[in-house]
């Protein structure tokens, strides 16, 4: 292999290396990782928000329930006025 052919190979490999590095940098892999982190962080925040909203609803329901009079029920031998069944 002559020096000229060797130089041509080196040049071709350099150009190939340059384009591979360029493609790698242009893909912004660090940006993807950061975006994934921010997506999971946002999902976690939404989940926490949902849990807080659910807890508030449960508190509201408990307060509404406590405000009603306590029901009283017992089995009797009277004839029924009406009959209930599966909804």
């Amino acid at each position, binding site marked *: 292999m002559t020096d000229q052919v060797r130089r041509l190979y080196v040049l071709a490999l350099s150009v190939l290396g340059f384009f591979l590095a360029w493609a790698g940098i242009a893909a912004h892999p660090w940006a993807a990782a950061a975006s994934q982190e921010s997506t999971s962080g946002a999902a976690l925040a939404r989940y926490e928000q949902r849990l807080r909203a659910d807890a508030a609803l449960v508190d509201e*329901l408990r307060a509404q329930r406590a405000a009603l009079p306590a029901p*009283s029920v017992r089995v009797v031998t009277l004839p029924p006025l009406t009959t209930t069944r599966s909804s």
Partner: protein
Amino acid sequence: MERRCFDAMGTEVELFLDADDDPGALDRAEDELRRLEALLSRFRPDSELSQLNRAGRMRVGPELLEVTTVALAARARTRGRFDPTVHDALVAAGYDRTFDELAEVEGRAAYRPVACGGRVAVDHATSTVELEEGFRLDLGGIAKGWAVDRVLAELAVHGPALVNAGGDLAVCGRAWPVGLDTPRGAITLELRDGALATSGRDRRSWRGDGGERHHLIDPATGSPADGDLLTVTVTARSAAEAEVLAKELFLAGDLSAATAEADGNAIPAVLVSRDGATVLAGGLR
């Protein structure tokens, strides 16, 4: 004593009012129940609920906003055992039309379980409800219970009253004797200032490929609940709450698990298994 019977919300409704100060009270109660049905039925394409299910996100009226809020609170309290997002699982199981229409259907598509537990966001500031894509609401039982409570509150202004809408019943003002049929004979429960709800697979069930199907979806599996229970009747302060408790106990798994839950949480209940065993639980005597 005034009495009124009519069909609404897919069942027979009975109203009793022990007062005669306002002859129009029962008319208004009937109108209110029909108005709520028109808003909250999933079987009416023009109902507000059906519009929400089609749109996925919508500004809604105060009734739908409140029932959705109550249903979501129930889902949170029961850790998902009660779930208003079972709509598509019900449809997949074959309950895709009113029960009267269902009886006329022959030949059903193969059944597949459908995921439940979809996200539902309620924004009270803007009266907006938003459903996760792929999920729709079925407020059937809890909407009926909520409507019964609302109508009872209107009648209570005039005097002692009873509202009975199929399996959802609420009373106020005095003790009311209410009959409950079980395989071992009828029981009469004397109820004062409270509500009863019965969930069961004895009525709203149908045949499909692979056997019997019914309308009580277990959100954990996305298919009709398995287990040995036939019906569960529960007493609570309101019909909406009784409706949730009845479903919660029905989905406990079996008769012994439901009895233990009713006893442990002091929920007065009548539990009937498919082999006819009838248990009074939660301190009911």
